[in-house]
């Protein structure tokens, strides 16, 4: 993993579940995020549990990340426990509120964006509220999809329960493991669009990203500024969608007062929308996309 610099290709809006094997592996990934963040001029916050903040800084320096050249306060390494468990318990709403402030704060300080690294090892001690982890990881997509921040969550796969890891993974639109090669990219990218208002989904939507996509759909509905206008669903970058994804979009159409306007479907996505019956819903308008020539 150390040789690859896959996380340097992340964009604002991405939310990645990173499976790590131990502390050094986590530091390697953290270094990639910090290096790319510095290159982009972003603010970077690292929430650490497995190491003391000073050890994280040392690890970044030993990996050649120019943290010494950063603006004062540009790279912050903080205790994950303090961040996620402010009153000794995990409250998703409180954590989301804090992240909103961090994102706004970075913008106010003149940074183009905020990059977050969360070492999720604090969950392993089983603090109160930790059972709401997967719910939180899904909800936080509603923040990232605005495209002003990106987040990488570090999960030590040797330490976490297998079933919990699967739940948590499907709450992220992307995951990365040490088996990933040079062609890695986030499996799915979720973005909220503003003009026209709606949702943009790119990549390949399958079971492994299902909870993230469902949360993004909820988030787009929750903050719809003009319910009388159909929600714009831009699928131009979506190369694959499974039947459950099609059904999710069907439900979005039924929940949105003025339905949805789907644009940019490639052939396979249009085909699954058709077979699942989404195209025939009166609240769905599907505009044919231009077929990518393979």
């Amino acid at each position, binding site marked *: 993993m150390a040789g690859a610099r896959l996380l340097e290709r992340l964009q604002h809006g991405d939310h990645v579940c990173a499976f790590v094997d131990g502390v050094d592996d986590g530091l390697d990934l953290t270094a990639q995020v910090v290096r790319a963040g510095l290159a982009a001029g972003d603010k970077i916050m690292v929430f650490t549990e497995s190491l003391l903040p000073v050890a994280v800084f040392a690890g970044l320096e030993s990996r050649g990340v120019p943290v010494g050249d950063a603006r004062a306060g540009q790279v912050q390494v903080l205790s994950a426990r303090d961040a996620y468990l402010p009153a000794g318990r995990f409250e998703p709403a409180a954590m989301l509120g804090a992240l909103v402030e961090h994102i706004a704060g970075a913008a106010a300080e003149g940074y183009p964006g905020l990059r977050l690294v969360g070492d999720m090892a604090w969950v392993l001690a089983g603090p109160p509220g930790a059972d709401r982890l997967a719910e939180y990881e899904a909800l936080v997509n509603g923040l990232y999809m605005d495209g002003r921040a990106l987040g990488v969550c570090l999960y030590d796969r040797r330490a976490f329960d297998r079933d919990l890891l699967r739940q948590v993974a499907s709450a992220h639109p992307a995951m990365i493991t040490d088996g990933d090669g040079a062609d890695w990219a986030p499996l799915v990218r979720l973005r909220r669009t503003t003009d026209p208002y709606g949702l943009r989904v790119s990549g390949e939507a399958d*079971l*492994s990203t299902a909870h993230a996509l469902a949360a993004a759909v909820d988030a787009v509905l929750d903050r719809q500024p003009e319910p009388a206008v159909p929600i714009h669903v831009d699928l131009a970058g979506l190369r694959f969608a499974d*039947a*459950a994804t099609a059904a999710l979009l069907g*439900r979005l159409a039924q929940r949105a007062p003025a339905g949805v306007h789907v644009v940019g479907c490639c052939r396979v996505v249009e*085909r699954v929308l058709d077979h699942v019956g989404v195209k025939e819903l009166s609240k769905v308008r599907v505009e044919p996309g231009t077929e990518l020539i393979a």
Partner: protein
Amino acid sequence: MSVATVEHFVHPALLYRDDQEYVAGTVPYIREGLAAGEPVAVAVPGRNLALIRDALGLDAERVLLRDMAVAGRNPGRIIPTVLLAFAQAHPGRRVRLIGEPIWAGRSDTEYPACAQHEALINAAFTGRAATILCPYNTDLLDPLWIEDAYRTHPVMIDANGRFDSVHYDDPVAVAATFNLPLPDPPATAATIAVDFYGLGAVRRFAAGQARQAGLDPARVEDFTLAVNELVTNTVRYGGGSGRLAVWTDDDRLICQLTDRGHLSDPLAGRLPVAPDAPTGGRGLLLVHRLCDFVRVHTTPAGTTIRLHLHR
């Protein structure tokens, strides 16, 4: 006539020996439905469809005519996409259909799925106001297949008239007798392990195999979609992991997935699901729609599903 009598589902088999008996057994049945104001659909193999169309003359325009060798090539999709689709297109009305899913060209691999389909019609249409007539060619079909028709149809019609089948039995129990093991994939088949973290890799594998088999790009996508739904079911319900094998024979791309799950609902994948329903159940339905043939062998110890796509 009581409401209960009007509402009930009627599922006769028509035993015919030649074209003349075929037309005599089907065309008056169709005209009777038209006269009663019932929506009528006919889904039979092309040659028989032509016989009916010619005999109906102008009335053919009032009947939905479908080539069963196309629409019902995969018997697993006949209930949702032919029979129930027609019934649901006419809510609140009694519908009349002819469905001929078993013809002389059906192979021994295909037949168990056909017989399961015939049995499960009875379960899928329980309580529905519909009549479905299923013609069987006693001259050309395996006599054992005709015997099975007596188990899957409560009523029989032959040249001498109409009678109750004394061999008719519980549809789910009869379908279960065709839940037969599938042969192992050949040793030369390409295989890949299936789990939650490998869905993308399985799609790339499936697409690569389909391209190599010479499928056109749209069918490559269909195969990929179908395989993805199967492996998604394995991950969600089938014990989380499984093994997928893909190979070809002269005219087909074949794939077989084995996992540790049990498909306990005999109607899984055979009932339409509303596009916006909050439930699952679309995966196998989509697989049935996309593939030319699907057969399932399922036990509490594990499930094997085979798909065919014509090359």
